[in-house]
């Protein structure tokens, strides 16, 4: 098969167009993708075969954002078009939950800094703390639902309550995915061949922070839409 030998020519051509395929300039071993580890090194600390995880989480975040924007637009239009809108009184525990979730984002950031300094025990502790805070948030949301139900506000009571349950429920489902990712990273014994622990932690943290911001957005939407 042609194309294996002419490294200089490839490099010349690639210099001409200013970049290599997929942003990955080929080096001594010629063409290669994520399959054989360590064949290529980039200038950045991120090995090229892990790029796909960073891209995937960003793309997934966009998709989830569009999903929630669709719900939000339905909410806004429905709110504007209905004559008798009975707002939901947000259970007070939701404010506590919000603080817990914000705190979990902070501990997650601290954990990542410890990991960067190779302080693995501190990383493990902070990571578990984040996971516990996440679970605490989920439990708090459940308590909030029970409080609403005690007031007689159910899923099908009115449009506002329906939206409240769907917003919190959909967010909880997505956040639960984040908790599983946290547990997965914590359970990893060593650096995987394709996905190192620091990369897994970073990817998970993107998702977690997004879930955090999304919750603040949804809460603000419900609060303003009262």
């Amino acid at each position, binding site marked *: 098969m042609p194309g294996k030998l002419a490294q200089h020519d*490839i490099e010349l051509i690639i210099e001409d167009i200013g970049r290599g395929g997929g942003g990955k300039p080929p080096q001594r071993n010629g*063409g290669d*993708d994520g399959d054989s580890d360590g064949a290529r090194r980039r200038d950045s600390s991120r090995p090229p075969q892990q*790029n796909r995880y960073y891209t995937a989480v960003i793309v997934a975040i966009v998709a989830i954002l569009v999903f929630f924007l669709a719900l939000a*637009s339905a909410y806004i*239009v429905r709110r504007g078009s209905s004559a008798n809108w009975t707002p939901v009184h947000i259970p007070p525990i939701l404010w506590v939950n919000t603080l817990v979730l914000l705190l979990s984002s902070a501990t997650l950031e601290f954990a990542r800094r410890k990991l960067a300094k190779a302080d693995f025990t501190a990383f493990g502790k902070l990571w578990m703390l984040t996971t516990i805070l996440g679970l605490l948030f989920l439990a708090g949301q459940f308590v909030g639902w029970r409080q609403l139900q005690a007031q007689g506000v159910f899923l099908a009571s009115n449009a506002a309550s329906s939206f409240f349950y769907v917003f919190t429920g959909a967010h909880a489902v997505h956040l639960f995915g984040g908790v599983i990712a946290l547990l997965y990273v914590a359970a990893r014994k060593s650096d995987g061949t394709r996905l190192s622990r620091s990369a897994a932690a970073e990817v998970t943290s993107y998702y977690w922070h997004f879930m955090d911001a999304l919750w603040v957005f949804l809460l603000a939407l419900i609060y303003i839409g009262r």
Partner: protein
Amino acid sequence: MRFSSDHKAIGLHYLWLALLSVFVGMALSLLLRFGFAGAEARLPWLAEWAAAPQRNGTLAVLHGSLMVFFVLTAAPQAGFGSYFLPLQIGAREMAFPALSRLTLWATVISFAIITSSFFIPAAERGLNLWITGVALFCLASLVSAINFTVTVIDLRGAGMSLPRLPLTVWAWFINALLGMLIFSILLGSVTLLLSDRLAGTHFFSYSVRAFMLAPAAQVPGAFSPVIHQVLWQRLFWFFAQAQVYVAMLPCFGIVTHLLATFARRPVWKERAVVLALCGVGLFGFCIWGEHMFASGLDPYSPLVFAVLAWSLGLPAAVLLMSWFATLWRARLQFTTAALFSLGFVALFLTGGASGVLLARSDIARAAANSDFVTGHFHLVMGIAATFALLAALFFWFPKMFGRRLHESLGKVHFWLTFAGVCCVFLPMHWLGLVETSPGSNFHAGDAGVPAVIPAFILVAMVVTIAVQLIFLGNLLWSLLRGETVAECNPWRATTLEWSVPSPPPPDDFGATLPAVYRGAYEFGAPVLPVPAAATVRWVDKDFRPQHLAPDETAAS
């Protein structure tokens, strides 16, 4: 079936699913036109089911569901895309092979759910089941779109810069981005819709409920078959509108790629074609998405067809211009794949002409639901996209199976099908215009319209569907006995999939991945200057593959 994560096996499974769907869908369309007259006597269970009052509406929706979801949406993107996208960009796999497998099986399950929902006697429960199936399909397509996007961004091989991507890859990539947005919104709306139907919530405002939830909301206890039939069709369009773009985009890519290969010419204004593909995606999403957002997921608008027709105008003109300029004075090789590509162009042009009519909102309003729209929609979306799929199949069949599809049979199949669909769908346009023209009291059953037209359509339809058996025979015969292809590159094409043996080995490229040195459409005269000393293995050929190193063009 094996539970394989290999992208080639997954692509093939999608294509087999599409083949099954297309033949079931055609049988359903026959059933729709003929009714159950003969079959009832022989199949008692069918008679019982057919006696249900919403029969015709649900049959039409089942026909549409199978064709739109599992053929037009799944086959060009998930079928051919899963198989050839990694090969064309120089990767051995999709970014997440396990996810590919997951989405395949989710799609198969949603096929089972959607099909079975029509055999449930209780229509309300059948409808809920259908929506669930569609939700699963949307979820699978969404995950698949994310997988495609990441693959194109991160897995391109050495030297495969964006300007060197084949247009097929561009089309799959843009389509994945578009699908990601569209399927997210559909998933959001289907969540609300299901909870309205199952949990008694009130997401959809009253005016929308009248359309979407009519039987439950308006006639509690009573069962109204007419309303019910309308309900099914509304819900179907709610989901199918968005699929128009998702189905057409990969077809544009495939046809452009094939026309350049068989015309032995570079794609005329390749960059403009890429921009036009982006334009189709962007317009498609903006218009459909704006409509969904602005109306709070209101599914129904009388102007839908007008909007579709307008928004495609500009990018479609660019694409058509490029196709014609590529073909201009080219010595086109009239293979079956090239014929089907030309058929696509012809039908697309015809559809564009009748779409201009639909873009006038008054005509659109009058003609909505008429035979005019049925004819227009089938010709542009259904048949044209199917032609692109067939072209892709004839083109890539040697690579997939190491055998050729029979060319002469393929040509007979093409000409008969082309004539057939024209005989079926062009009179439908006329019938629709006659029916809906102001001041006329004509209806299809009336004496005013010559009864010969519907009869002609029916006969043409039977013949056209019978002709498809030629294709089925060709396919099965060629799989087992077809002429074997010894060389890697029988069409003398440039992209990377033709540098590997046919069928490709499990790891695609063997020990070393290929490097890419040039663009995807270097046909005809040399594009790079050939060194003076070159005596030349490649200069006497009229194409240069992407993996061909510059010194090999010069080496003896």
